[in-house]
């Protein structure tokens, strides 16, 4: 989920949370405010209406009293007004056909009505006002509903606005930045500086980030170059050392009479040869960590054929796809190929004037590779196919296949056929 989407979600949730917290607070405050207003009305009634009510009661002017009662229920939320005179007679609002409001949910305000006569307070009646607090609460809540809806709408709009703004100002630039970093991760492109595609420079955090990353990439490039140089030097020395070891092995081979020891020394020298070719290739190309099999394997086979007696009689056919392997994998692939080619040259084409070798490496599926080696020689003996009697060469091949987690298929009919399926 993108940051902008999360921003939208969190902003919306935050606004909802704020609404959930503040809506009741606002409602309570509104109710209190409204109730205060009603209380002020009651206070106003006390000051303005009660003297005239007392006067009407004192004068027994009941017609006027009735009019005054009717006027008092015009105040908001005062739903009932009752006056009892000094003789216990009840005067109330004439509701005619209207339903008389229930007393339930109403707050009562009582007031004793007195008239000063001859220095004494004479009770002329009592007033009872009924304030419909339930309706008051209901009205306040109803008044809050549009506010809540508005807040919800504002929450959605704000969340969308935040999301859009974040996307426009940050998100899309970061995505662009990430794409750039992904596409320019090799050492050669580390020197390319990144800049955000914006109309004008803002000098903000994004530009600080770009400047920091560009600076870091330049430093990395320097370090990479230094490391490459060191590795090339190391490989060069290894290759030289291998060359020395190979020369020593060949010198040793010339001095001994034992045929088995001679073969062993020549095999060892040959295996060193395959590794030397690899290190030479790695040293010569720009990078030392990886290489295409298409560049390595044909060169290796050609090198083996050039130094092996009878190699000039062999015609090579290779179909090697451009698949990149790291140095360790290529080394294993090279040893396996070396074993197969030297095996063909040593045992396969004994009585033949001309031999054919075919090497194929191709991608069979997205994750699986197929390696096929064929020659038109005498073929692999059955004992080697079954694994009952095999030399070091086949042991190495099986070991390499295991290392790749692959499967090995051998065939000795119509020459040698070795097929390896492995994942890469």
């Amino acid at each position, binding site marked *: 989920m993108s940051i902008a989407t999360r921003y939208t979600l969190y902003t919306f949730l935050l606004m909802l949370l704020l609404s959930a917290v503040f809506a009741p607070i606002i409602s309570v405050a509104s109710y209190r405010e409204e109730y205060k207003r009603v209380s002020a009305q009651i206070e106003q009634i006390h000051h303005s209406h009660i003297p005239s009510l007392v006067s009407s009661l*004192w*004068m*027994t*002017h009941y*017609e*006027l009293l009735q009019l005054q009662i009717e006027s008092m229920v015009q105040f908001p939320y005062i739903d009932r007004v009752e006056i009892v005179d*000094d003789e216990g007679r009840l005067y109330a609002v004439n509701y005619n056909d209207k339903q008389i409001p229930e007393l339930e949910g109403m707050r009562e305000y009582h007031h004793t009505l007195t008239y000063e*006569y*001859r220095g004494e307070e004479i009770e002329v009646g009592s007033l009872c006002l009924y304030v419909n607090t339930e309706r008051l609460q209901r009205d306040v809540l109803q008044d809050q509903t549009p506010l809540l809806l508005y807040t919800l709408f504002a929450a959605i709009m704000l969340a969308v606005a935040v999301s859009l703004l974040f996307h426009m100002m940050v998100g899309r630039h970061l995505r662009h930045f990430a794409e750039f970093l992904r596409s320019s991760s090799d050492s050669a492109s580390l020197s390319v500086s990144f800049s955000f595609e914006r109309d004008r420079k803002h000098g903000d955090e994004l530009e600080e980030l770009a400047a920091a990353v560009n600076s870091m990439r330049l430093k990395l490039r320097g370090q990479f170059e230094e490391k490459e140089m060191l590795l090339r030097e190391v490989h060069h020395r290894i290759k030289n050392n291998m060359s020395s070891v190979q020369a020593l092995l060949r010198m040793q081979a010339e001095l001994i009479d034992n045929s088995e020891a001679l073969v062993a020394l020549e095999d060892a020298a040959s295996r060193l040869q395959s590794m030397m070719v690899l290190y030479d290739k790695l040293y010569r190309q720009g990078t030392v960590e990886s290489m295409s099999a298409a560049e390595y394997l044909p060169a290796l086979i050609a090198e083996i054929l050039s130094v092996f007696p009878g190699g000039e009689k062999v015609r090579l056919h290779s179909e090697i796809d451009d698949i990149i392997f790291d140095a360790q994998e290529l080394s294993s692939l090279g040893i396996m190929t070396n074993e197969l080619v030297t095996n063909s040259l040593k045992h396969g084409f004994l009585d033949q004037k001309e031999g054919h070798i075919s090497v194929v490496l191709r991608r069979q599926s997205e994750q699986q590779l197929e390696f096929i080696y064929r020659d038109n020689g005498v073929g692999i003996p059955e004992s080697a196919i079954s694994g009952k009697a095999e030399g070091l060469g086949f042991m190495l091949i099986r070991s390499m296949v295991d290392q790749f987690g692959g499967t090995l298929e051998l065939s000795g009919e119509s020459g040698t056929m070795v097929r390896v399926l492995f994942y890469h």
Partner: protein
Amino acid sequence: MKKTVGLFLMLLIVLSAVYGNENKFYISTSYKNLLSNPEQRGMLDRIMDEAFHRIGLEAKIVFTRTEKSLVDVNAGLLDGELNRIAGMEAEYTNLVQVPEPNMTMHFVAFAKQDFQIDGWESIRNLYIGIVKGWKILEQNTADFPRRTLVPSEIELFTMLHKDRLDVALYSKLTGYAALEEMNYDEIFHLEPPLASRKMYLYVHKRHSALVPEIAEALKSMKEDGTYEKIVSDSVMPYNREE
């Protein structure tokens, strides 16, 4: 709406009085008591009925609110005003007073206890009550410190009954009628009257020619005992003094 309908009815009455039936004489009153009432069986109703009958006309008594009654007659909407003190023509210039009085009205103080009174000043410091709009009472008590103005005699006598007034000022005759209606028999009037005024019929000036005839009719009624009989019949049920 009510005002418009009232005006329309009044106009109909006037038009019918002027053009419809020349024998009818429309007299305005604001009383609703034993002097005059909607059934036209009040004392003055019967006196007017007889007096106008004697001059060959038919008296029709029409109720109008206190303040409006004089205004309407002065404007010529009605033919006469039933019962007013002398001197109204000074303010209402279209009115002509019939010189023979209808009656003498005694304005007295009603009370539940026997105060000794002798004119307006003797009741200055008492708690008094009067009905709003009664000019003679309002004018004579204007600066009294403990005066209460009430809308009608109902409130006036109820207050007195509840001991919220010392005295209630009202017309003696109509006061007793009201007390009788309200069953307040502990209330009585104090002697002497605070004021006595002869009361007169007023007619619009277009009927000036009738004034001598009406006065003569009233006089003749007093002389032949008709007047006394109507008064006795009307007052008898309420007269506690007798």
